[in-house]
């Protein structure tokens, strides 16, 4: 993307395009990646509540996976996941393995 020069910047640097963080792919920052194990998931949605980057995808009130374009791999979801009978529904795996 061509970078703007100082004359092209919006007044006071105001971001006029609301919600444009969506276009910034923070997923590339990740060194660990959450993996969803569906058979252990009780659909408590703790992961969705705790995710600081709204990167847990939900459809019809059910967890469906992750938005890997934005997930930074912080691992909060995996920590908070209660799993089923002691088996986690989210585990963190090193990227590139």
């Amino acid at each position, binding site marked *: 993307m061509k970078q703007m020069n*100082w004359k092209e*910047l*919006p*007044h*006071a*640097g*105001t971001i*006029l395009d*609301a919600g444009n963080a969506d276009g910034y792919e923070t997923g590339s920052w990740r060194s660990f990646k959450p993996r969803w194990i569906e058979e252990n998931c009780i659909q408590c949605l703790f992961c969705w509540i705790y995710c600081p980057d709204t990167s847990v995808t939900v459809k019809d009130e059910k967890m469906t996976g992750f938005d890997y374009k934005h997930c930074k791999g912080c691992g909060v979801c995996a920590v908070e996941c209660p799993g089923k009978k002691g088996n986690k529904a989210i585990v963190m795996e090193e990227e590139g393995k």
Partner: protein
Amino acid sequence: MTTATKTKMQAVTGNQAVAEALRQIDPDVIAAYPITPSTEIMQRFSEFVSNGKVETELILVESEHSAMSACIGASAAGGRVATATSAQGLALMWEMLHIASGYRLPIMISLVNRALSAPLNIHGDHSDGMGARDTGWIQLYSENAQEAYDNSVMAYRIAEHVDVRLPIMVCMDGFIISHSIESMQFLEDEDVKKFVGEHKQIDPLLDFDNPKSIGALVLPDYYMEHKRAQHEATTKVKQVVLNVSAEFGKKFGRDYGLFETYRLEDAEVVLVALNSAAGTIKDEVDRYREKGVKAGLLKPRLFRPFPYDEVGDALKNAKAVCVMDRADSYGGHGPLFMEVASALYPHRQGPALFNKVYGLGGRDLMPHHVDQVLDETIEVAKTGAVKMIKEYITVRN
């Protein structure tokens, strides 16, 4: 030819004059944490609020840092916003001053100049204003109550101009002006209202159909572009100040420019000073003129952005110039001296230049002190030799 209604002269304090200007402007929001010697501005303004004389929402906060923060929020939301402060109050705002200018918010501060601690002192000098020199705010300095009032009336027209959109400080000397009663002339409420006009914030946050963000993180790839754009806005200030002042002069009969020159045209011996000291210096310039000395004064009004070209042109033909600073830069020359020296750099064959620091912490500058400085400036004009570039006067040696 003035078109406005003539009002009679009244005897008021500088603070009262500024409070009246604020009443007539009737800003949307004022957030304040009163501090000596600016306290009376907010004391009087809160009476206007209580008595229903203004529509302003007055927010009383717990510190000056919060006062400026509230001003920033209110201005970004879309309001016309003001506050008043002095010394430590301005110092505590320091972090937020940069935010206000970086967001290009046309907030006004009535700055009643007071010495910074330590040692603790409540009296007038310019160390607070000079400390905020590099915060990106426009600074107008005022010799007396009349000028403080007139500058306040003009402030929003300058700050809110679409080419500028920067915050502005209107400065006057603590106690010497803020608490002394002198005669001055107010404008009619209707005339001020018409002159100041409506405020329309660019990209206000209180605009739900057009959501937007301010204050985003900017990394090395863009920070410098933002700062360059901010500097550009300051380059537009001079012309706007001249235009607004010309309109003010035409309507109300009092003329202002980037600085005031007093008997400067053919002057060989020139003093440069801000604010109230200029009044004393004018009297002494008159006395020396009567003795046949070609003395003159340059009194900057717009200190930020500093009008280098114009000041350089105005001083280049003098033989000797003494710049008088009511603030110090420890280990440096006085802040006003540094600007004047920069302004004269393209005229290196011009006047001999030196610096006197005076009046710190409210120490009086008496006519005989000005005479000493004039006498030394005459001597420097004769010999071309400056003994000491920076020296303190009105101090016990």
